Each structure stands twice: as C-alpha cells, then as structure tokens.
C-alpha cells in the first residue's frame, strides 16, 4: 500500500507491557492507609507512610523488587503504628470524658480535628 520501500524490521519486543520496571504483581503501597493516617491525626506517621508508599512505586518502576517490597513493609508498619497511636489518643480522650476532664480545654468554639 504505502510506498516507503521495504518493510521496516519489527521493533524489538517490549520487556513488558506498560511498566518499564519490574514485572509481575507489585507489592501494595498502602497509599490509602497513608492518606487516611494523614487526614485523621498521627501526622508524622502519615507523612512517613506516604514517603514509603512513594518509594514502593519508584523502586518498582526501576526494577528494584526487593527495595519495593522493603518499602511496602515499612509503609505498612507506619500505618499500623499510626492506628495504634490513634487508638491510644481515642482511649485517653475517652478516659478524660469518663473522668469528667473532657470539657476543660476543648471549648475553643470549634473543634478543629
């Protein structure tokens, strides 16, 4: 049909479809947990968790499977620690309410939480 001379050689087969990095099932990056953590208190833990989530994606895209899995484990750890910290704060607040200390310093007009 076209007049470009002989057919060009077929391009070399792609290493994988889509991602240039590692193949297979990537480890979870727990980004949802990291973002939930950032929204609902435990801020330093949430930011750290997002950093490790990002590392999962970047290391995976570079083909560093072990590094991505390591970052995934760390992201999960921070999410769990954040949940524990959240539970501790919730329990402390519950105790404060039960003991009757609750309203002493929360009357700022709005509760910004």
């Amino acid at each position, binding site marked *: 049909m076209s007049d470009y001379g002989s057919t060009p050689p077929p391009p070399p087969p792609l290493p994988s479809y*889509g*991602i240039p990095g590692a193949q297979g*099932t*990537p480890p*979870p*990056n727990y*980004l*949802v947990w990291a*973002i*939930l953590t*950032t*929204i*609902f*208190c435990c*801020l330093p833990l*949430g*930011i750290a968790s*997002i*950093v490790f*989530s*990002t590392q*999962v*994606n*970047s290391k*995976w*895209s570079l083909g560093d499977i072990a590094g991505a899995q390591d970052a995934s484990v760390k992201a999960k750890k921070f999410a769990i620690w954040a949940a524990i910290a959240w539970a501790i*704060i*919730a329990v402390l*607040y519950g105790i404060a309410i039960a003991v009757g200390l*609750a*309203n002493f*310093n*929360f*009357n*700022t*007009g*709005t*509760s*910004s*939480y």
Partner: protein
Amino acid sequence: MPVLSGSAATALTGSRRALLRPLGAAAVALVGVGYVGAVDPNLAGHYPTCPFLAITGWYCPGCGSLRAIHALAHGDLMTALARNPFAVVAGAYILVAWVLWLDRTVTGRPRRWLAPPWVLYGVLTAILMFWVLRNLPGWTWLSPA
C-alpha cells in the same frame, strides 16, 4: 475454612470470604461517616482537638476533615471544600481505590499496575504545600476555619 455442603458452595467460599474485607471496610466507613454526620463536629466537646493543633497552634493537613465529612454526609460539597479540600479529594481517591480493590477481589486478578512515581511525589509535595499554605495569612480558602 468452614465446612459447606455442595461443591459449588465450596468453590465459592474462597471468593466470598475474600469479599468480607472490602465489604467490611465499606461497612466501617459508612458507620464512621454516619456517626460524624450525626454527631456535629462543629460543636465543641464532641471530638478531641487535633493533637498537632493543640500543641503547636498550627493547622495540620487533616484539620477540618471531620467537619468536611460532616458536611459531605449532609450533601454540602461547598462547605466540605471550605473546611478541608484535601479531605474531599482524598475521599474521592479512596472511593476509587475501594472500587478497584473490590474489582480485584471479585475477579481474583492481582494488582498489575502501580502509578508512576512522579504522581506520588506530586501528592506528597501537594500535601506538604497544603500544610504550610493553610497556615499563612491570605490563604483562608485553604484553612479550616
């Protein structure tokens, strides 16, 4: 593994049990949103103040998210955006992520794709900028007040 009679039921057991996780997460989220919708975070004393705000006096990226969820539960998107735009966007993302999770669970296909790293670096940068800017004068549209 519970013993079920019938081979079809046994074959379905795995996927049914796997479905418990996304459905359970949705149930927990609905209960949480329902609670925040019913117990008004605009009134003092209903929820603890953000620890970061209480200690430093500065807003954190999550400040205003309870009131944003309360507004969303009442269908008030504009108020929700005014309290915490990040919480609204994050809520939409979490909804999409949940649908994809449910799809992976139902079809049994593992995750095959991760977002390119620059997307996550962008998210991280945006959250850090949001954190700083909402504390600066003149950026009241980002502050939770």
